[in-house]
């Protein structure tokens, strides 16, 4: 298909599929690239739910405005406010749309959509579909995408890996270079705009709750090609995951939302079976320290509390684990959580309906990512808004969620917007779909107005980038060095997890910086165990490893330079939030010459809600 304008979407999760549907709907053909069949994208793993104010919440005094306020407060005010305003005000419409698409949301007795509690809010405003909401939402969008595929407006490139953006002489994005992971064929693809919707970078940390494809390599490649990163240091560690040999498996916040309680034995090193420990010898530390929110404190707080009680020796049997207990809940509630309880049972052999689950924090979500801009617009308030004048995002403006590289957009988790310093539970699904739908129109408008068509660009431009990527692969395959890429990756994960997750301090991070330098040198001296030119998974992994190290450096630099504590970024050497000078976005650009990140600080504009101390203990 060569009709232009056309758009490339890289990534088939919620953000990518929502964008694809929105753009195709406006008659613009889309080439959809994904490492996996899109129905298997990582969004499928989201469990808990999706936030939106609805009539029931509204009549209890909740509003879109409050949803916005909770998002800003939860994100420790690092978020830009107009996009958050827009997202939260769109949330009810998005739920309606998903409902129309057939998502089986849980229902009330009367047949309306049911709601559950979630961290960071005292109102029920989280819509859900069992405990596998992400799966149902992704499938609904996958189905709509298939419909456009059937109409010939979407071309699916599954098992294709994004390698590099094609930038023209003006630095404008005009396509991508990609590789088929089966035949290893490499090709240049023309497009008038490219949407990156490639998700998070958990694999940088070795074990995380993310899928094995969530390496952050695509984002890192854009960064190496000139796209800035925003707040890369903001990595959310989920408080409750099942530690595993190959990965950490998520245990959704909905377990706490539905009444699950977190506790450890009161006596250090107590190794009795949890069911043998009487109530008075259990320490419900979240409920004790945060009487108002209890087990529903935001994730960064729950994470730090669980981490620190274990550090103090109160963990289960003295180890690094706490109990997440749902055994006391009624059968109906346990049924609502069935999808996640089954996972626990399958992977540990214990039935959480009768035995408390053993959990520990694990790397979960990247709030930072590709730096993007938007067009703010002054509006008249709607009911619930607390000001006379409010600021949202201008509908359909081509600038919305475009990176600093013209024509290159970033949607969903890979986009640094919306979450600030901590993502509020059940806001991720919303932000991804919102980006896809709302900013999908922006992309369509951009390409329709674009006069400098990709179709008219000289073939030489594409050939140049293709040759460049081919040369990189030849070099990698022909290396005959000493180091095993999997071993380097294991060390990268260990180093990053130890220095850059729940608690950070300068000394340990500088040590990690040195280790990264060493890994970089080792990476230049690796040997691939597969040098073939067919389905070479070894090559795909090893290539991503180089990009992960580059990305890790940006995470680390911003973590070192942000000498304060804010949301998920907690510095033991700077335990307080310091607004002057750190109420700012950390913006990293890649210095190609010296192969290192350059960090600049950018003001966070305040529009509607004033900064206030983030405190959930009262």
């Amino acid at each position, binding site marked *: 298909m060569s009709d232009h304008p056309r758009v490339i979407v890289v990534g088939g999760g919620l953000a990518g599929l*929502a964008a694809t*549907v*929105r753009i195709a*709907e406006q008659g613009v053909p889309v080439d959809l690239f994904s490492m*996996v*069949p899109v*129905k*298997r*994208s*990582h969004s*499928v*793993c989201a469990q808990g739910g999706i936030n939106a104010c609805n009539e029931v919440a509204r009549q209890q005094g909740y509003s879109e405005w409050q949803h916005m306020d909770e998002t800003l407060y939860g994100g420790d005010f690092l978020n830009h406010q107009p996009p958050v305003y827009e997202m939260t005000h769109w949330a009810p419409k998005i739920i*309606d*749309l998903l*409902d*129309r*698409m*057939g*998502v089986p*949301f*849980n*229902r*009330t*007795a*009367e*047949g*309306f*959509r049911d709601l559950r509690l979630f961290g960071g809010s005292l109102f029920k405003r989280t819509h859900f*579909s*069992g405990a*596998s909401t992400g*799966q*149902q939402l992704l*499938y*609904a969008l996958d*189905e*709509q995408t*298939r*419909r456009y*595929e*059937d109409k010939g407006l979407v071309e699916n490139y599954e098992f294709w890996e994004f390698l590099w953006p094609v930038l023209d002489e003006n630095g404008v994005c005009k396509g991508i270079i990609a590789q088929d992971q089966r035949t290893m064929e490499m090709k240049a693809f023309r497009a008038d705009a490219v949407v990156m919707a490639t998700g998070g970078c958990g694999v940088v940390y070795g074990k995380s709750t993310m*899928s*094995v494809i969530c390496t952050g390599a695509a984002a890192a490649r854009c960064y190496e090609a000139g796209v800035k990163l925003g707040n890369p240091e903001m990595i959310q560690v989920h408080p409750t995951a099942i530690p*595993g*040999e*190959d*990965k950490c498996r998520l245990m959704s916040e909905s377990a706490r939302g539905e009444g699950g309680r977190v506790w450890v034995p009161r006596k250090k090193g107590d190794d009795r079976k949890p069911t043998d420990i009487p109530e008075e010898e259990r320490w419900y530390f979240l409920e004790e320290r945060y009487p108002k929110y209890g087990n529903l404190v935001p994730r960064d707080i729950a994470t730090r509390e669980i981490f620190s009680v274990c550090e103090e020796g109160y963990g289960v049997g003295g180890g690094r684990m706490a109990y997440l207990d749902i055994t006391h809940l009624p059968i109906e509630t346990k049924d609502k959580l069935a*999808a996640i309880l089954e*996972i626990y049972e*399958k*992977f540990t*052999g214990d039935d959480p309906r009768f035995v408390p689950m053993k959990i520990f924090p694990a790397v979960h979500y990247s709030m930072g990512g590709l730096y993007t801009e938007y067009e703010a617009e002054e509006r008249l308030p709607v009911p619930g808004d607390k000001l006379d004048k409010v600021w949202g995002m201008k509908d359909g403006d081509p600038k919305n969620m475009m990176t600093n590289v013209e024509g290159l957009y970033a949607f969903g988790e890979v986009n640094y917007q919306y979450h600030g310093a901590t993502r509020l539970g059940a806001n991720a699904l919303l932000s991804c779909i919102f980006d896809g739908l709302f900013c999908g129109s922006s992309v369509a408008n951009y390409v329709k107005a674009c006069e400098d068509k990709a179709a008219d660009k000289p073939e030489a431009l594409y050939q140049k980038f293709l040759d460049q990527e081919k040369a990189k692969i030849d070099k990698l395959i022909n290396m005959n060095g000493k180091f095993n890429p*999997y*071993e380097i990756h294991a060390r990268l994960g260990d180093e990053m997890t130890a220095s850059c997750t729940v608690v950070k301090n300068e000394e340990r991070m500088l040590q990690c910086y040195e280790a990264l330098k060493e890994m970089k040198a080792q990476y230049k001296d690796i040997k691939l*165990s*597969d040098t073939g030119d*067919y*389905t070479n*998974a*070894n090559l795909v992994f090893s290539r991503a490893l180089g990009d992960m190290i580059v990305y890790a450096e940006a995470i680390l630099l911003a973590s070192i330079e942000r000498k304060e504590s804010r949301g998920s970024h907690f510095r033991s050497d700077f335990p307080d939030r310091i607004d002057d000078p750190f109420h700012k976005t950390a913006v990293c650009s890649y210095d190609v010459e010296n192969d290192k990140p350059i960090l600049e600080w950018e003001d966070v504009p305040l529009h509607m809600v004033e900064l206030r101390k983030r405190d959930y203990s009262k």
Partner: protein
Amino acid sequence: MSTKTFKVKVKRQDEAASASYWQTFDVDYTPNMNVISTLQKIAAKPVTADGKDVAPVVWDCGCLEEVCGACTMVINGRACQACSTLVDDLLEEASVIQIEPMSKFPVVRDLWVDRARMFNNLKRIKGWVPTDGTYDLGAGPQETQEEQDLRYAYSRCMTCGCCLEACPQFTKDNDFMGAQIFAQTDYFNSHATGKLLADDRLDVIMGEGGISDCGNSQNCVQVCPKELPLLNAIASVGRQATIYSIKRFFTGKK
């Protein structure tokens, strides 16, 4: 510390067109291992039990939480997800763990198979709700919790292929669609808007490779990792097809 090892026998195939062969690996045992971590260990150091350096084993996987459906393989003779299959359980049944690709789909390489057929069939049955677009047009149809329960059960199908691997009717070279498609047909036909395309779906289901080819062996329901009500789906779709065929007969619709 003495390292305990166990043997893993992997069925390999270099390319789609080439012949398959077996290789055995010794893998270091650590507690709580699953088949994925076993394969990861082999990938990191691909040396066979008799000391030969070989190309690393290739497989397909994603979330490792038994939700994405990518890592289905045949392990000790059973189609299941490699992520949720634990080594301890396998070693209880046999001293050597045997891993092979699913037999009903074309092999891409080693344990990685091409399941595009399943996704293409979803296209054939118009596996979607025909919405009027993504604009703000209000809520979808109301439904009861009972209706949601049934649709939710269907909506958890992760297109993994276990039901088809176990099905005696489904073969590499016929065009039988199998339980996965019947369940999805019932899923969409049971939604108030989705059912607007019910006749189109039933036309497909009553055509070649459709419901009449189902031998009712009931193997599918026994292997479905998400316990989808597949027998219910087959019965329901069969019933819908019968009613539709009578309707078609009397209205003269072709």
